[in-house]
């Protein structure tokens, strides 16, 4: 989709064909007929006309998507900690599984706009503090029981219980109260206005499980596949759910999913034809994949980044000149070329990437400028000193980036000493705990989530310990602002503030690289992560 259908005028007959194509795309992506119609109506088309366009596209689509077939998918992470509990799913492997077996109230499309899934209607009131959710009535869990509001209440409340160990706990913080107001209706009260709640509810952490579920040895969800086998650290087998509420989905009969941690082994398994799809392809393997017939590389540009974190609350980061010096030492072009083989977009020390609709292209790009770096370093008084940088395989490519930084820094009289620490426990034991180290995040669905979690003063993952009152105020204002233009302005200013003040150096936004056999169709990039934001299962099909 090249533009947002909600703001496009579509009455024109000339545009009809284009729209049918767009809508066709939407079907391929996994939107239901109802969603498509709703979208077209929202775009200003009459109900009858929308129905026609949707049918046209649906037929065209049905000819391409083939039903049946089984595939094997090998992802990069696996261990005995693999889980079917959506609240605990932290890595792509878990999240891919969760999207097979469960649904959320909403689902994110490739523009990261939330589309309705289990919810039939989500309406805000009280300036987006109170949200009313109406559930679909035709949804059944895999065990045959119908979806009710009790299931949703249970699933959303779980995050508050520390014993659940929810990874979405801090995201769920603003949700104050969840009340069932009917068998298929509920109310969500937030602590403060947030127009982005529907997007939040589309994240894997908030997928809906059956009321009262505590045993996650198997998955009882509403999702497109049923769980036929699940062995943590070994594999899972998903088989088609014939009663799935989205018509004509899923396309495949069976998906076997397992992990291969070793990247060369993963690529070899694809090239030898043992698996149909892999994720987390090293940019250095890209050429090998591209030059092999019958396999394709699948690039997802998005907001994922690995950043150098300079803590602002201790030396040397407490000196703003030092931070500026380091930010100018990054040869971003070189990092993009040597480390990422150009599968990355240059970053500008702020976390909103170009795929985000609030990205501000007018913010001047910070260049690699040894002279300015030297100037700031001299002024900071830290010239010719040695500083340790903590790197880890856990923060992908941090070792390589740090080595390049080390080289450029040497030329201007700044010595960095690399300290590689183990991947195990990196995020709890090292991340944000050293004066200079590496951090990172995967793509977040909205600018608000990105800023609230990683940059708001005092936020638990405020990597550099940056605090800015103006920024905090703008964040709250933007959250409840409904005028897009004004909101854009606010986010632009926030990007500038982070760019100037925070201790996070974001050299590039790395693309997610996946690869698959050519017969596998239907993949569309969704910027929250690789493999359609890990929601590939219900959207892909096998040709022939």
């Amino acid at each position, binding site marked *: 989709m090249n533009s947002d259908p909600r703001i496009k005028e579509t009455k024109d007959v000339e545009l009809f064909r284009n729209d049918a194509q767009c809508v066709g795309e939407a079907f391929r992506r996994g939107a239901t007929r109802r969603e498509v119609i709703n979208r077209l109506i929202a775009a200003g088309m009459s109900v009858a006309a929308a129905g026609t366009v949707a049918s046209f596209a649906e037929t065209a689509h049905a000819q391409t998507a083939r039903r049946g077939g089984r595939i094997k998918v*090998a992802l990069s992470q696996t*261990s*005995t*900690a*693999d*889980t079917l509990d959506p609240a*605990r799913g*932290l*890595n792509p492997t878990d999240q891919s599984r969760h999207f097979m077996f469960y649904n959320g109230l909403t689902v994110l499309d490739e523009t990261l706009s939330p589309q309705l899934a289990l919810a039939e209607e989500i309406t805000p009131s009280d300036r987006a503090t109170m949200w009313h959710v109406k559930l679909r009535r035709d949804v059944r869990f895999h065990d045959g029981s119908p979806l009710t509001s009790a299931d949703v209440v249970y699933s959303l409340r779980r995050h508050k*219980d*520390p*014993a659940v*160990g*929810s*990874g*979405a*706990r*801090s995201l769920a913080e603003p949700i104050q109260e969840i009340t069932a107001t009917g068998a298929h209706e509920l109310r969500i009260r937030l602590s403060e206005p947030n127009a982005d709640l529907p997007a939040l509810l589309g994240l894997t952490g908030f997928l809906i499980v059956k009321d009262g579920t505590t045993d996650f*040895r198997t998955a009882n969800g509403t999702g497109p596949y049923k769980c036929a086998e699940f*062995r*943590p*650290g*070994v*594999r899972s087998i998903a088989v088609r759910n014939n009663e799935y509420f989205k018509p004509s989905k899923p396309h495949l009969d069976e998906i076997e999913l*397992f*992990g*291969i*941690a*070793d990247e*060369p*082994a993963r690529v*070899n*398994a694809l*090239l*030898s*034809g*043992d*698996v149909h799809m892999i994720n987390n392809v090293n940019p250095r393997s890209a050429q090998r994949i591209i030059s092999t017939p019958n396999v394709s590389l699948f690039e997802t540009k998005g907001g994922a980044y690995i950043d150098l974190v300079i803590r602002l609350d201790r030396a040397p980061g407490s000196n703003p000149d030092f931070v500026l010096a380091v930010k100018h030492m990054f040869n971003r072009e070189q990092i993009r070329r040597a480390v990422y083989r150009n599968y990355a977009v240059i970053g500008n020390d702020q976390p909103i990437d170009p795929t985000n609709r609030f990205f501000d292209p007018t913010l001047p790009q910070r260049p690699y400028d040894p002279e300015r770096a030297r100037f700031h370093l001299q002024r900071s008084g830290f010239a010719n000193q040695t500083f340790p940088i903590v790197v880890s395989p856990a923060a992908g490519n941090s070792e390589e980036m740090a080595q390049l930084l080390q080289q450029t820094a040497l030329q201007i009289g700044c010595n960095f000493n690399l300290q590689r620490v183990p*991947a*195990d*426990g990196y*995020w*709890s*034991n090292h*991340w944000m705990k050293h004066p200079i180290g590496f951090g990172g995040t995967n793509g977040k669905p909205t600018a608000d989530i990105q800023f609230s979690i990683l940059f708001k003063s005092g936020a*638990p*993952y405020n990597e550099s310990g940056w605090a800015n009152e103006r920024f905090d105020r703008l964040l709250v204002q933007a959250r409840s602002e409904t005028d897009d233009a004004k909101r854009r302005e606010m986010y632009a200013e926030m990007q500038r503030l982070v760019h100037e003040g925070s201790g996070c150096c974001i050299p590039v936004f790395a693309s997610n690289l996946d690869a698959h056999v050519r017969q596998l169709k239907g993949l569309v990039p969704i910027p929250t992560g690789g493999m359609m934001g890990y929601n590939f299962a219900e959207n892909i099909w096998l040709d022939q």
Partner: protein
Amino acid sequence: MSMVVVRLVLSRIAIAILTLGFVSVAVFVGTEILPGDVAEAILGQGATPEAVAGLRAALHLDQPAHIRYFLWLGGLLSGDPGRSLVNNLPVAELIASRLPNSLMLAAVTAVVCVPIALTLGILSAVWRGSLFDRAANFLTTSIVAVPEFLIATLAVIVFAVRLRWFPALSYAAGIISLDQFFRLFALPVFTLSCVLTAWMMRMTRAAMIDTLRSSYVEMAVLKGARPMRVVLTHALPNTIGPIANAVALSLSYLLGGAIIVEIVFNYPGLARLLVDAVSTRDMPLVQACVMIFCSAYLYLLMLADIAGILSNPRLRHR
């Protein structure tokens, strides 16, 4: 004869229990020293202090270390090795799903390796100093000198990706045909064999040379027995002890040391289970895996000693 073996078995069992007790304490202390715990591992990047504290309490990790150790030990003695802390599955179940795989891989590799290694070892000992001996030595040394992950990856690129003779992955569930079985195990067994055959061959050669130098073999040679006959009837029975020892040590390596092969070929064995358990700080699972490796090692050594006793006339009749 049986008395010797019985005494040996009994004393070995006593020693094994002692050793296992010591190892369990060492492993427990080891996992305690490791930075981070299972609660942090579960929460990953989402590990805020309050979330960690809450989960720790839920997993009973807030109890003092020695109490947790004795709780675990008490469970083990009553036959229950506990539950995994990360996924709450019974440890026994997790082990049961992996142990047969590990044993299978070890068995197949042993069947391939042992005859080749023993034959090569004995021949190069008999013909020591010959061109054959030198070539075999050079070849095995060269193979051993290549990092295992390089052999594994190279084997996959050549035989799976280029030639497509064998699959790149070696996991298959359920009953499979003999043909499939052969294809699945070909590459991992090849990789493991490269290392193992070389070592076993060298140990066999050394043991054989040692025996051939001994006085009674010289006596047999002086009496005019043919060389092959000397080797088979006089020297070989006396080398069974050391050779059995060598084989036992190699096989114990196959259980825990196959980690690289298990990772590269995605083979669900015990070594990977232990690696997972260590990285998630899953103490009961770590303990169970290490106990198995340790017992297997001691058990195999005992078997080797028994073989040694049974094959040695002097020890047999004591």
